[in-house]
């Protein structure tokens, strides 16, 4: 058992997980549930108001930690921030030209499919983009865990673009459905 527990410790330490992009998600699930089973306000509702308030603060923190670590993009950004490289994401907006060109073409194709109401095409774009994103995350994981923060930062910026586009396709499909 650790000697003392610091509520301001980072999310990896909170779950007792190594500070890496590679993550055993099944283990995170189990740890999350075990932690919530201890700190959730429902477990303290019969205790004093003070204990209930503490429980809410803890449960809030555990939820935030879980959400951050579960999502690979959030996890990567969090790791970069812990390593002091978060500025790379906020301020550096330079992107390789060919990436930007490809993105613009993709965006146009999506806009056209949306215009035509072609949900089959949108579904196909969704699938293909999802696949690209998956392999990007694999690359991100190896660069980040190798300590190459510069190229990890660039991947993160690109993934933010791609995730946004994926989200836009989702929304277009949602509009077409209704």
């Amino acid at each position, binding site marked *: *058992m*650790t000697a*003392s*527990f610091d*509520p301001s410790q980072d999310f990896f330490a909170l*779950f*007792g997980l190594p500070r890496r992009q590679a993550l055993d998600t099944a283990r995170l699930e189990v*740890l999350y*549930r*075990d*932690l*919530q*089973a*201890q*700190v*959730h*306000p*429902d*477990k303290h*509702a*019969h*205790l*004093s*108001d*003070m*204990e209930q308030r*503490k*429980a*809410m603060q*803890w*449960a*809030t923190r555990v*939820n*935030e930690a*879980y*959400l951050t670590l579960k999502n690979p993009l959030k996890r990567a950004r969090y790791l970069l921030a812990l390593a002091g490289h978060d500025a790379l994401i906020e301020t550096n907006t330079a992107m390789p030209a060919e990436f930007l060109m490809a993105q613009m073409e993709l965006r146009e194709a999506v806009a056209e499919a949306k215009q035509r109401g072609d949900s089959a095409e949108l579904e196909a774009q969704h699938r293909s983009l999802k696949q690209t994103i998956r392999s990007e995350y694999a690359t991100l994981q190896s660069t980040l865990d190798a300590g190459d923060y510069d190229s990890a930062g660039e991947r993160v910026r690109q993934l933010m673009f791609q995730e946004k586009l994926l989200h836009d396709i*989702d929304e277009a499909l*949602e509009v077409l*459905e*209704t």
Partner: protein
Amino acid sequence: MALLQISEPGQSAAPHEHRLAVGIDLGTTNSLVATVRSGLAVVLNDALGRPLLPSVVHYAADGHSEVGYEAQAFQASDPQNTLVSVKRLMGRGRQDIQHVESLPYDFVDAEGMVKLRTAQGIKSPVEVSADILRSLRERAELSLGGPLTGAVITVPAYFDDAQRQATKDAARLAGLKVLRLLNEPTAAAIAYGLDNGAEGIYAVYDLGGGTFDISILKLSQGVFQVLATGGDSALGGDDFDHRVFCWIIEQAKLAPLAPQDAGLLQMRAREAKEYLTSHGEAPITARLSTGEYVDLRLTTESFTAITHTLVHKTLGPTRKALRDAGLSPDEVKGVVMVGGATRMPQIQKAVEDFFGCEPLNNLDPDKVVALGAATQANLLVGNRAAGDDWLLLDVIPLSLGIETMGGLVEKIIPRNSTIPVARAQDFTTFKDGQTAMALHVVQGERELVSDCRSLARFELRGIPPMVAGAARIRVTFQVDADGLLAVAAREQTTGHEAHIEVKPSYGLSDDEIAAMLKDSIRHATDDAYRRALREAQVEAQRLVEAVQSALREDAELLTAAERAHIDACVAKLQAVMIGDDRRAVDAAIEALSSGTADFAARRMNRSVQRALAGKKVDAVSL
């Protein structure tokens, strides 16, 4: 699970006291109260053996008021003073209410939450709901033989902050301690899941009298995790009645109706709807005050046709909730049906077609929510038995945001975030010496403020004067386990806490609540002071038990001096709680609460450590 208790010689250990707790389903059409008795959740019936309490209150001119079946009797003869489906008005402005013209009430023309003019003065929907809750509280206390420690009250999952707050305020007016506001579909999932040992992904399709909810849950090893929820807080069985009502008027070619005729035909419409659940055709007959005679037959085919759009309207939110959960319909293992309106055959068929599996109807759709709430209430007051270590993880149904430049919304907390959840946002001043700032908090998914629901305006005061842009005010938005929002603000460079004034858009201010409380005490039949004293005593007892159990578990976390201080506070509270000085009881409660603050923090840290060390507390204390 309980610790072995070793008592001083000559002193017996306190018997494991069973605290009285109930679950209340405060429905649009009917309400219920349930409790756990000998390990089994049961609905508490009224003196005549009836489980349901119609959510109807009648305010007579002579100062008497009736709740339930007695009030329902006045629906045709005195519709203006007989308030039904008041849940639809909770936390709502007049412009929000559908078919407002067909309601027989006298609405007060004012901003904010609607109010109704009755023979007993102006009533807020909160007060009307409080009367229903009070009736259920009395039923429970009579049946259980003592004052309640607390209640879990259910709300539609899709209720926004204003609607939730209004419900909590109503409970407070009714003299109930709210242990938790629980989402109705989640309550149903608890009842279903625990009964059937269910594991996997389940959907709860809950079509009540006035609200529709769809929740997608993951049930796994005693954890009920809500993945996504959606719905429509103004869609329910009442709307089906209304379609039938309109159909009657159209078919019988009736002119605008007198209020009592409208009330009568609404009743006939509902009867026809219910009749069609088990028959192919429903007769509709009525004699109106004008002497006209209505004699119609509604077939299942016509009924299905005129309500088709309503059924369809439930599938949109269902699709959206599944998408939010990242699932497709075939990944759902079962669909639990809740709410009386799911008895309609066209609803059953629509759900079966959508999910491709037969809906689960093995629990009474009227009772399942109250039973789940009772189970949760029993757990929350600490009446734990073996196998009761399940956990509920629920979500916030609608995104929370703040108004930014140009009437746009910046999302602060996205929908379907697991609660409790908090987000901090930094703001700065734009004028030299600025000491106040206003925040407008809205709830909804749209980009424009005007398309979202206004929750409240927060005014932060007491910001230390600085040059423009120098102050850094961190505003924290905290949503608690009831799904209710609280806002706190702190200036970061000076650590100065800003004072916050809340102006709820569709809620009651603290002053209004205080006035209503006073009012209800003045009108109460029982001695108000004794009632308040009894409540303080119940609270004191709860606190003493909580602290004693904490001391049994974790006494070594305290130094001798700290222990002595807490013991003194406990002794003081125990001494005053048997007397009849309420203020002294309140003061001693306060002293013990603050005296145990550090202890509480240390206990929490320890339980976190235990979880991380892979040791369950159960295993430690067994």
